[in-house]
C-alpha cells in the first residue's frame, strides 16, 4: 500500500475493457474449454463436491436456461408484460445460490430467477410479477428469498439492515453452523453507481454486517457499458470501504460456488461484509423491451458465446466421465416437461379481481381502503344493473 496514492499511483490492474476477459485477478477453476484449473485458496471448497452434486449443478443450469427461454417466449406471445433474461448468467446464479445454506437470506434484483429456483421458489412467482398479476406476491420467509426489487440498488440497504439484525440476534460467529447466518445481496454493475449501494457498503462495514454483496457484472446496464460506471474493476470498490472484494469468473460455476462459499463463511464468522464481482455477460437484451443492436456489436456477443457456462460444465462432466449422453438427455427431457408446466401455470394463472387492489395496502384497518373498495364495487354493480 503506497503512502501516497496521489503521486505514486499505479496503473489500474485488470481494468475492465469492454470486450476484455476478466484479467489476472479473476478466480477461475474451470476454463472456458472445460478444463479444471487448480487454485491454492479455493480448491478446498469444491473438493467435496460429488459427481452427483455436479450433475445437480448441470441440471440447475439447464432448467433455468429453459425457464428463461420460456419467460422470453411467453412475453413474445403476450402472456407476460416484460421479461428480464438471465441468459449467460446461469453459472453466476446457480454457483452462488448453491453455496447458500437454508437459513441464509437472499436479496435479489429482478433478474435472479436462477437463484430463486435453487432456493426452491416456485417459478410462477416471478412469472406472476412479469405477467402483471401481482408486484411479487410471495412470502420471503418461505424460502428466505426476498421479493424482487426493481429500484436499482435499494435492496442493498435492506440486505445490510437484515444482516445487522442477524448480528443483533447473535447469529454471527458462534461457530454453530445451524445458527450462524449470512445474507447475500445481488445487484448489477450499473447499480454500483447508485448512492444506496455505496451507503450499504458504508453501513455494512461500519456494523461488520454478515452480508456478501454479489455483483453480477454482466458488462452492461441496459445500453451503457461498465466503463461508464467505473474506471477500475468493480471488485476493487470494496477497498475504498475497507472490506475485501474479489473477482470471480461468473461463467464458471465451480469458481463461483467456491468463492461464494468462502465469502459466506467469512460473513458468518463475523468477517463481513465482502464483495464478490462475478464477471459475466448478459447474452440477451436487457429485457424484452430492449434492442441491444442499437448499442453493442455482435462480435462481442459471439466472443462470449465461447465462454458459455453450461457448455463448459458439460464438457468437464463428460471429459471426467461424471456424466454421459443419457444423463444429458434426461436433463433435456426434464427441461421440456418443466417448460410445459411453466407455460401452463403461467397461462392459467388467475388474475385477481379489481376490488382486491385495496386489500394489502395496509396491514391494519384503514377507512379509505374500505370506502374506496365499496365505491368501486358499487360502481361496477352500476354497470351490471345497466346491462
Amino acid at each position, binding site marked *: 500500500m503506497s503512502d501516497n496514492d496521489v503521486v505514486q499511483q499505479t496503473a489500474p490492474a485488470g481494468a475492465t475493457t469492454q470486450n476484455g476477459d476478466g484479467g489476472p485477478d479473476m478466480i477461475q477453476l474451470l476454463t472456458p474449454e472445460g478444463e479444471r484449473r487448480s487454485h491454492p485458496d479455493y480448491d478446498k471448497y469444491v473438493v467435496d463436491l460429488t459427481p452427483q452434486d455436479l450433475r445437480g449443478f448441470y441440471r440447475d443450469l439447464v432448467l433455468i436456461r429453459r425457464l428463461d427461454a420460456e419467460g422470453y417466449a411467453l412475453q413474445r406471445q403476450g402472456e407476460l408484460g416484460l421479461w428480464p433474461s438471465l441468459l449467460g448468467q446461469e453459472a453466476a446464479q446457480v454457483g452462488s445460490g448453491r453455496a447458500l445454506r437454508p437459513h441464509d437470506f437472499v436479496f435479489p434484483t429482478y433478474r435472479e430467477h436462477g437463484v430463486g429456483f435453487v432456493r426452491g421458489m416456485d417459478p410462477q412467482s416471478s412469472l406472476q410479477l412479469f405477467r402483471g398479476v401481482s408486484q411479487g406476491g410471495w*412470502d420471503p420467509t418461505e424460502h428466505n428469498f426476498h*421479493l424482487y426489487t426493481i429500484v436499482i440498488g435499494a435492496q442493498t*440497504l435492506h*440486505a*445490510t439492515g437484515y444482516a445487522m*439484525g442477524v448480528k443483533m440476534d447473535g447469529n454471527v460467529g458462534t461457530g454453530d453452523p445451524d445458527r450462524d447466518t449470512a445474507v447475500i445481496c445481488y445487484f448489477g454493475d450499473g447499480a454500483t453507481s447508485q448512492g*444506496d449501494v455505496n451507503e*450499504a457498503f*458504508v453501513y455494512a462495514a461500519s456494523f461488520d454486517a454478515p452480508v456478501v454483496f454479489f455483483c453480477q457484472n454482466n458488462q452492461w446496464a441496459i445500453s451503457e457499458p461498465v466503463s461508464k460506471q467505473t474506471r477500475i474493476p468493480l471488485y476493487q470498490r470494496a477497498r475504498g470501504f475497507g472490506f475485501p472484494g474479489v473477482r470471480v469468473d461468473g461463467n464458471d460455476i465451480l469458481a463461483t460456488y467456491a468463492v461464494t462459499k468462502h465469502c459466506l463463511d467469512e460473513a458468518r464468522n463475523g468477517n463481513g461484509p465482502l464483495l464478490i464481482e462475478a464477471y459475466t455477460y448478459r447474452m440477451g437484451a436487457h429485457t424484452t423491451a430492449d434492442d441491444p443492436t442499437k448499442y453493442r456489436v455482435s462480435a462481442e456477443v459471439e466472443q462470449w458465446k465461447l465462454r458459455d457456462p453450461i457448455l463448459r460444465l458439460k464438457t468437464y462432466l463428460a471429459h471426467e466421465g461424471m456424466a454421459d449422453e443419457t444423463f444429458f438427455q434426461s436433463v433435456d427431457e426434464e427441461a421440456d416437461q418443466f417448460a410445459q408446466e411453466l407455460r401452463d401455470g403461467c397461462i392459467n394463472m388467475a388474475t385477481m379481481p379489481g376490488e382486491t387492489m385495496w386489500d394489502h395496502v395496509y396491514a*391494519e384497518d384503514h377507512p379509505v381502503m374500505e370506502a374506496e373498495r365499496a365505491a368501486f364495487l358499487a360502481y361496477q354493480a352500476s354497470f351490471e344493473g345497466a346491462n
Partner: protein
Amino acid sequence: MSTTMSTAAATNAPQHLEKVTLGRSITNGLRKAMERDPKVVLIGEDIGKLGGVFRITEHLQKDFGEDRVIDSPLAESGIVGTAVGMALRGYRPVCEIQFDGFVYPAFDQIVCQVAKMHARSLGAVKLPIVIRIPFGGGIGSPEHHSESPEAYFAHTAGLRVVSCSNPEDAYWMIQQAIECDDPVIFFEPKRRYHDRGEYDTSAASAPRSLFEANVLREGTDVTLVGYGPVVKTMLESAAAAESEGTSIEVIDLRSLSPLPIDTVTASVRKTGRLVVVHEASNFLGMGAEIAAEVTEQCFYHLEAPVVRVGGANIPYPPSRMEEDFLPDLDRILDGVDRALAF
C-alpha cells in the same frame, strides 16, 4: 396491531399526574415501548451518547445498549433502508431524521420501499417502521431546519402520517405508532418540545386511537382545524376570539393519513365555516385536501369557502422573516374573520 398495549378505556388504577415536556414525553414513550418489546430498536444520527440534537433519545443508549439505540453513519437513505431490512428480520425500528429538511435523501426508500412492501408481498410482509421527524419552523434556524414536508408523505399511499401537538398525545402516540403494524411517519412539533403539559403517566392505555382527531374546544361559529405546532396557536386564537364574542371549535387533527375527516365534517355541519391551519405551503398542503373533502361532504352546510391559513408558497424564508411567514394568532384570526365575513 399487537395487543400488548390496549387502547380501550382507562383502568381504575390511581392517577399519577405529572407535568412533563412534550420532548420528554416522547422519550418516555420510547422507553416504554422499548421496555415492552425487545424488538423495538432506534436508529438515527447522533441519537446515542448525545441523545439526538433535541435530546429525545437521551440516556436510552446507556440503558438499552448500542444494539437497540443505534448511531448510524451520516446517510438518511441508509437509516431508512437498513430499517427496512431490520423490520424484515423481525425488528420494529424507529428511525430518527434529525430535521425535516434532511428526510429527502431517504425519500426513495420511504416512497418506493417502506410504503409499498406490504402491497408488493400481498400482505406477507409487514413493515412496522416509525420514522420520527421533528418538523416546523419558529426556532430561528437556517435553511432546511424549519420545514413542513408532511403533504409529501400524506400523498403517498401505504404510509400513515400523524403529528402530536401536546405532551400527553406525544407520550401515547409514539407508543401507538410503534405498535402499529404499518409504517408511520411521526411528525414532532419541534418548537413545542419544551412545552409542558400535565397528564396521568400511570394510565394503562391511550385515551384514543392513533388515527382519531381530538376536539379540543367546542364552539359554534367557526371550526378551526390543524395539527402539530399550530394547535397551541389555534387554542390561543380561539380564546382571543371568545373575548370578542366569536365561538370557535378547535380540532387537533392528529392523523393526517388516514384523515379523520368525519370529526371535521361533523363540526362543519354545526358551524358552517372552516379554517384550516398549517405551516406547510398552502398549495397542495393538507388544507387543500381538507377543503376538497369537506366541500364535497358538507356542500350545503358550508356558508363560506374553506379558508386556508398556511405557509406562503415559497421556500421557508430566512429566520428573521419567519414571523411574517408562520400562521400566528393574528393570521389565524384574520382567516376566521374572512370565513365569517363571507
